[in-house]
């Protein structure tokens, strides 16, 4: 959904986010929704400005979100509050699952298919009965077993369903059994949220969802930074799909992402496991040895992803140009293959284990922003060389001079052999290019001023580095050097600094026909025969014609207009502002209600029309049904009332047969470090969580008395993430000058800590000192009859810039979400005491 669409919501639950403080300008749409009559809720361990601006604040213990959301699912199902016409037509609620499926209720916290030796699941028993369902998400396709080639069963007929919902293994019945024990009493016991508060929120969403009313969730890293982060979001997806709050005005789940182009760097990824716009990076252990095998195993039989071959061949043409031919698999063998997880956390360990020789840090500062940063510093010290590109000195760049280990006398600069380069970088106003915001809005920024001195854009750096490398490899005859020789690397340069033209790069991302280099108008024009080149199919249409850079378009709707602002920048895909907006109309193609209309079928014109660009085949009739006798593939296998076109049968997945490493339904686990036992199952934590226990990265046991407090980390309005960017800006730094820990008065009294006095926090990973902020914004929880204290620290400080303090992430361990390898920063345990830490001080007044 578009950010501004939140103003159309009848309720908004902000959970796992402190939106008013961390996405302040987005929060104004909640304020507007409230002005129009919406009810706002904040579910969060801390009472913040978000809670203060909401109608209800529900405190929960960090990490207990699935118990809370599971309780909502229980309430909706048992009270029959779900939007029947929506969910029966558009979700897999009636689909029948394999007989062999066994629920964690039977397995004491573990789903069927678990292999305790390997620590992972086989998904066989989670499939639709008699079918093999491919995962729609490339990131997950690449990790699980490859199902593309076997997904033919999806083209042979629809998955078995029981519209009466009586079949014991239909998704409805499975969910009822799965969530039977997520009662309000249990929610209170696990989360610490009073049951009346919890129930008032359930009533709110149940009464304000349906044909006429919609609501939304808004979340940030408070949901993702757990070992079960994907499953928290999934739980909200189930709530929203049951209530009909998907693809409709004011309905949805708003991911409030962090950095300016964090969405863009996910789409056009500097990520290890994907090629641009969600194509899987080939993997040596999958059926990817040749392009044919890769395409066969990655192309699902049904749904939009059936177009996969067009996208990968067009990408190869964009990268290798005339060196990509049918005879050489379009250059497929030049693309390196993965042999395992090399995401940031394993990368950190690889550095500390000496596997990496050289490392680039391009606008990222892991010595502050990563977890277990003492271990990160050890890794940096083992590199042969490293390159840092930033606008000011970062803690990563000068770890060898001022790092934690130097401060504490554990190492001396003379002992560290790393060769370090610091290149000054340009900021947005000093260079042209696009960034993609949290609701997929691709916006161009102009180069208005000059970057100072030797500062250059990262485009300049990478382009000129590439030119030099191409020169160095020009004479080689070794086959391993063919890729760099074959790479197309020719962009026009501007001015005496020879700045490459970012628009030329954006045009390559948009795509063009090879013969005449004419820009393609959209991704429907892409082919799998080598006649088109495209660097990122989902962005096609951002530059549909020479001279027409849609990311530069600045034509907002007038007051009283449709409010989708289709003339303001470009939203991928195809400038759609709300994904899956076919669901905003009923199965017959009529808006669910006048108040909540978005797109609809126009019988006269024979096409979909409305206030947004339809996220559907424009001329597919609502009554179109696949002709199964013809073995339909791709979009032909999806009916005119199947809105979720990226899914293999166009239905929203309440129950996910493929693509999740840790189970088809969200189920409650405790954080890896928790003061209490899991009240639901004997299985304490996510059995598939990624754990790398090694010296320096130890975890605390359940209820370890040495580390009795629940710790969460957060950031501040004035200081942005780990970057020095806001710590070097004089007035934002002045507003938040120094690191602190928030704790409740009861705990302060118990420990003899005074407001603004020094405290020391510790874990098995390390120790930091900060000033105390004693505040009633935090209250002790009663969990399972026990008093549990929750405390919080901002993680945005370091020793550079004007605003300083100990690096909080020294306390954190390297552990990963089962699906995404995201680290845990939101729920762990620690110790806290009055007084300063041992060793050399690094506090702001340490000189």
């Amino acid at each position, binding site marked *: 959904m578009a950010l501004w669409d939140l103003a159309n919501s009848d309720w908004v639950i902000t959970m796992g986010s402190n939106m008013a403080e961390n*996405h*302040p*300008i*987005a929060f104004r749409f909640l304020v507007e929704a409230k002005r129009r009559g919406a009810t706002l809720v904040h579910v969060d361990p801390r009472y913040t400005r978000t809670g203060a601006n909401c109608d209800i604040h529900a405190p929960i213990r960090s990490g207990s979100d699935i118990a809370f959301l599971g309780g909502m699912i229980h309430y909706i199902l048992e009270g029959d509050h779900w939007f029947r016409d929506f969910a029966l037509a558009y979700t897999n609620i009636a689909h029948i699952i394999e007989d062999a499926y066994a629920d964690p209720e039977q397995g004491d916290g573990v789903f069927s298919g678990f292999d305790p030796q390997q620590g992972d699941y086989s998904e066989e028993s989670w499939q639709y009965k008699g079918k093999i369902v491919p995962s729609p998400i490339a990131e997950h396709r690449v990790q699980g077993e490859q199902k593309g080639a076997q997904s033919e069963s999806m083209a042979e007929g629809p998955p078995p369903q029981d519209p009466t919902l009586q079949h014991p293994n239909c998704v409805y019945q499975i969910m009822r059994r799965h969530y039977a024990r997520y009662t309000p009493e249990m929610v209170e016991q696990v989360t610490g949220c009073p049951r009346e508060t919890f129930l008032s929120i359930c009533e709110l969403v149940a009464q304000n969802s349906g044909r006429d009313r919609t609501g939304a969730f808004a979340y940030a890293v408070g949901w993702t930074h757990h070992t079960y982060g994907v499953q928290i979001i999934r739980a909200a997806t189930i709530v929203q799909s049951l209530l009909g709050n998907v693809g409709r005005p004011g309905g949805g789940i708003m991911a409030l992402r962090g*950095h*300016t*182009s*964090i969405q863009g*760097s996910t789409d056009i990824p*500097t*990520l290890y496991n994907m090629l641009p716009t969600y194509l899987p*990076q080939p993997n*040596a252990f999958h059926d990817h040895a040749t392009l044919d095998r890769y395409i066969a195993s990655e192309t699902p039989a049904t749904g939009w992803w059936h177009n996969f071959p067009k996208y990968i061949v067009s990408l190869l043409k964009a990268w290798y140009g005339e060196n990509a031919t049918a005879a050489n698999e379009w250059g497929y*063998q030049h*693309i*390196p*293959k993965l*042999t395992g997880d*090399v*995401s940031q956390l394993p*990368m950190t360990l690889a550095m500390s284990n000496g596997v990496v*020789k*050289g*490392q680039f*840090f391009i*606008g*990222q500062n*892991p010595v502050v922003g990563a977890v277990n940063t003492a271990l990160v510093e050890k890794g940096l010290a083992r590199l042969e060389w490293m390159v840092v590109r930033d606008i*000011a000195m970062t803690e990563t760049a*000068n770890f060898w001079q001022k790092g934690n280990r130097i401060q504490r006398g554990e190492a001396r*600069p003379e002992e560290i*052999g790393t060769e*370090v380069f610091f290149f*000054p970088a340009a900021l*947005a*106003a*000093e260079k042209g290019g*696009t960034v993609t*915001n*949290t609701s997929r*809005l691709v916006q161009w920024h*102009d180069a*208005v001023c000059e*970057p100072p001195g*030797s500062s250059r*854009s990262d485009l300049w*750096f990478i382009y000129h*580095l590439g030119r030099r*490398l191409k020169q*160095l490899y020009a004479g080689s005859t070794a086959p391993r050097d063919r*890729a760099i020789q074959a790479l197309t690397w020719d962009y026009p340069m501007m001015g005496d600094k020879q700045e490459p033209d970012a628009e030329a*790069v954006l045009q390559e991302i948009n795509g063009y026909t090879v013969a005449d280099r004419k820009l393609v108008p959209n991704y429907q024009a892409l082919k799998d025969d080598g006649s088109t080149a495209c660097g990122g199919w989902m962005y096609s249409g951002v530059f549909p014609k020479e001279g027409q850079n849609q990311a530069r378009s*600045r034509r907002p*709707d007038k007051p009283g207009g449709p409010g989708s602002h289709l003339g303001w920048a470009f939203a991928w895909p195809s400038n759609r502002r709300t994904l899956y907006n076919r669901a905003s109309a009923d199965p017959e193609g009529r808006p669910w209600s006048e108040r909540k209309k978005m797109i609809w079928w126009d019988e006269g014109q024979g096409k979909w029309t409305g206030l947004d660009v339809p996220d559907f085949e424009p001329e597919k009739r609502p009554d179109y049904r696949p002709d199964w006798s013809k073995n339909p593939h791709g979009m032909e296998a999806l009916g005119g009332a199947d809105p979720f076109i990226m899914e293999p049968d166009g239905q929203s997945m309440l129950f996910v047969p493929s693509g999740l490493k840790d189970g088809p339904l969200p189920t409650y686990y405790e954080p890896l470090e928790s003061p209490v036992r899991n009240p639901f199952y004997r299985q304490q934590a996510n059995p598939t969580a990624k754990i790398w226990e090694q010296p320096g990265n130890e975890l605390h046991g359940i209820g370890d008395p040495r580390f009795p407090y629940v710790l969460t980390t957060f950031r501040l309005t004035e200081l942005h993430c780990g970057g020095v*960017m*806001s710590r*070097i*800006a004089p007035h934002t730094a002045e507003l938040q000058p120094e690191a602190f820990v928030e704790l409740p008065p009861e705990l302060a009294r118990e420990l003899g800590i005074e407001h603004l006095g020094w405290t020391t926090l510790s874990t098995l990973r390390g120790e930091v000192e900060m000033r105390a902020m004693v505040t009633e914004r935090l209250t002790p929880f009663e969990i399972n009859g026990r008093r549990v204290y929750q405390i919080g620290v901002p993680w945005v400080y370091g020793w550079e810039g*004007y605003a300083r303090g100990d690096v909080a992430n020294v306390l954190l361990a390297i552990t990963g979400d089962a699906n995404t*390898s995201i680290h845990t920063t939101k729920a762990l345990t620690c110790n806290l005491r009055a007084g300063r830490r041992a060793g050399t001080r690094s506090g702001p007044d340490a000189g």
Partner: protein
Amino acid sequence: MAKLRRGMAGRGARFLKDWSLPRQLAGESPMSTAARSTTSENLRPRLEQADRVGTSICPFCAVGCSQLVYAKNGKPIHIEGDPRSPVNQGTLCPKGAGTLGVLLSPQRINKVLYRAPHATEWEERPLDWAMERVAQLTKQARDETFVERLPDGKVVNHTIGIGSLGGATLDNEENYLIKKLFNGGLGMVTIENQARI
């Protein structure tokens, strides 16, 4: 003496007439006439001196607020929220409003710095020298660590000896070229950014 006194009284009266506070206290709007004074009349907006204005996007968070950047002689002199944007309608949060302070921060570095192995201090180096040295080191590390096949014969054509971290603060075009060169050209697979975390 009387003349002097009259002159002072006259100046005092003029000052009182010019001073905006009494008019505001008397109920006139502080947003219009009652905000006027000789001083305010002589104030000129900073952005009048600008020789260039362009649209930018706030460099901090993913809300994507639009900014108008005013520059003079290639230097920024003023930044404000773009009133046309449906995202922010002219508003900015404290970070966005502090963007000029970031661009002009005395703590910005505009020289290439180099730290030799085991050195205790930074040195300044020319950009061209550093670019060539990094290109050479990249080639050397790649050549030493490149793997064409696994022991069982599977083709991988990759290196895990060089890594790259960062991207969420960069432009799409920059990320595209980083992935293209490092992955598609050099065979690096350890490429990550803040999006995962």
